[in-house]
């Protein structure tokens, strides 16, 4: 009796499922894995290309030319300090513009605007974020330069790092606003209520409770802004001038050269094969590697801050 009862009326084969179905599932899974691997491939290609060709450049260039009077690649001068300084000046101007605008907009949207108004106003930020940088470059040179920078500097050249910097500031404002707003939105309501419970007003609650609680996210937003500013190309290429190259300067009223604009300038130069410029194209990759490493470091730091926000709540 016991034997009959325990006799399996089901066997392992019944639970094996159809081999065809299992093979199909494995195939589909492999296809998706392959798609995912493409992103690894792209990463690897970027790193290999940049490192390989940058090394090639360094091995061929006269190292003394890396620290010279300026960035004049067609003449064989590759002063890194010039383009790094240009990048930093323009990014700094951009941040001075974008930090108050971005954070102000973020605090307003997160703390003051009613849900309805928030819904109506947020698209402004999103539309601004959607404007291509080439268009803001045009705006910088056609509107900002004559209307703001030229009167301030008393200069008559429309090209200036100042105009480019303001353009970059406009470009990164929506980025800062949206990342910071996300962080503030994530601050629990209970914290605000506790603050109101103590009789604090909205302003002190926003500035002394919400902003500090969201500080990681806000810092992450600012770092991302810097990273974006450093990597911004078109605004600078159009508005900062110095197409052929530049001597070292940090004066925002003057034209200047950034790492990114140096690259487009080389690529759009009317004649790629000028005499003495055989290092011009390899130098692109050297600058590119520098830019890649700077933005990568910034992005990694900002990601750490963002993760802290997530862990906090």
């Amino acid at each position, binding site marked *: *009796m016991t034997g*009959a*009862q*325990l*006799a*399996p*009326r*089901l*066997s*392992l084969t*019944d*639970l*094996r*499922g159809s081999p065809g*179905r*299992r093979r199909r599932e494995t195939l589909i899974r492999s296809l998706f894995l392959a798609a995912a691997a493409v992103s690894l491939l792209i990463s690897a290609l970027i790193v290999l290309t940049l490192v390989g060709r940058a090394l090639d450049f360094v091995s061929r260039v006269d190292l003394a030319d890396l620290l010279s009077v300026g960035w004049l690649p067609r003449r064989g001068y590759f002063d890194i300090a010039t383009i790094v300084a240009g990048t930093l000046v323009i990014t700094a101007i951009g941040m001075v513009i974008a930090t108050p605008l971005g954070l102000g907009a973020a605090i307003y949207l997160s703390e003051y605007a009613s849900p309805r108004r928030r819904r109506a106003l947020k698209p402004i930020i999103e539309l601004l974020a959607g404007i291509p940088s080439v268009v803001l470059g045009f705006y910088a040179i056609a509107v900002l330069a004559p209307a703001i920078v030229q009167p301030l500097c008393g200069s008559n050249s429309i090209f200036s790092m100042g105009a480019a910097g303001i353009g970059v500031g406009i470009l990164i404002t929506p980025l800062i606003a949206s990342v910071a707003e996300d962080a503030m939105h994530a601050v629990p309501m209970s914290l605000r209520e506790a603050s109101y419970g103590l009789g604090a007003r909205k302003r002190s609650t926003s500035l002394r409770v919400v902003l500090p609680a969201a500080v990681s996210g806000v810092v992450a937003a600012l770092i991302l802004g810097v990273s974006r500013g450093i990597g911004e190309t078109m605004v600078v290429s159009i508005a900062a001038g110095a197409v052929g190259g530049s001597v070292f300067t940090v004066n925002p009223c003057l034209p200047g050269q950034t790492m990114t604009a140096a690259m487009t300038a080389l690529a759009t130069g009317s004649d790629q094969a000028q005499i003495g410029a055989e290092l011009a194209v390899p130098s692109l990759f050297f600058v590119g590697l520098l830019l890649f490493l700077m933005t990568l470091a910034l992005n990694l730091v900002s990601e750490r801050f963002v993760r802290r926000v997530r862990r906090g709540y």
Partner: protein
Amino acid sequence: MTIQAPEIAPSDARPGPDVQREVRIDIRPMMQTKPDVQPTHAAEPAEVVFKLTYFSAWYGTFRAVKEISLDIGARRITSIIGPSGTGKSTLLRAFNRMNDLIEGARVSGTVTYHGVDLYAPEVDPVEVRRRIGMVFQKPNPFPKTIYENVAFGPRVAGVRGKKNLDEIVESSLRRAAIWDEVKDKLDGLGTALSGGQQQRLCIARAIAVSPDVILMDEPCSALDPIATLRIEELMWELKQNYTIIIVTHNMQQAARASDETVFLTMGDDRAGYLVEQGPTAQVFTNPQNRLTEDYVSGRFG
């Protein structure tokens, strides 16, 4: 006596009888309306569907369920009760390998299903879940039409042809006692039904693939008393053809609606373990263990 081998997937009785009934508000007196089975644990149980031997389940390094050995009989309702966090859901989800979907979840010991090791490497969890269906705590119809909700299971199991599908949909909805309420709006969204209707739709969805076992994880916790009673009546109908395992926090429900009761609790290591298993009548009226007695009489948990 020899027990006839039942078919795993009952293919008869379709379309089923119209089980539409009135809702009876008066709660059935405990135990009395139970018809046939009066199995005692010591006596020969019907037929063993699941057999667990030293079964443990882990989430990462945390052991949620510890060394459980038990048998679950066919065509009856087994309820799993116990305080929160004792691993009832974990145990239930082990029966159809739903835990496989959770990152870091693993098991040890053995679980056999009709004598076959459920966790053998050759076993395809998809095949397992076609035989062992599940109804979840929160009604979770697909955000699609009522028809699609029920037809999806048979369709992925290979049923083709509108006529066949129509038939299965109707009979499943009938068996789940919801046909009359939805027959005019099969194209309506499943998510637009009331909570109790949604849960019955989920039951219809589960039985549409002709499973052998139905697992239910607190199927009534989101429902009002009337909807709860309807589901219990439905379970009572369904156990003619299916083996049902239900996790519940509701003592009365376990007492009213189940044949067998499994009581879990947890030790200091927070791992759930089996305290007592037996016929429901016995567990509730004459528990063998002090912990069980405290729990079922409401002194604990």
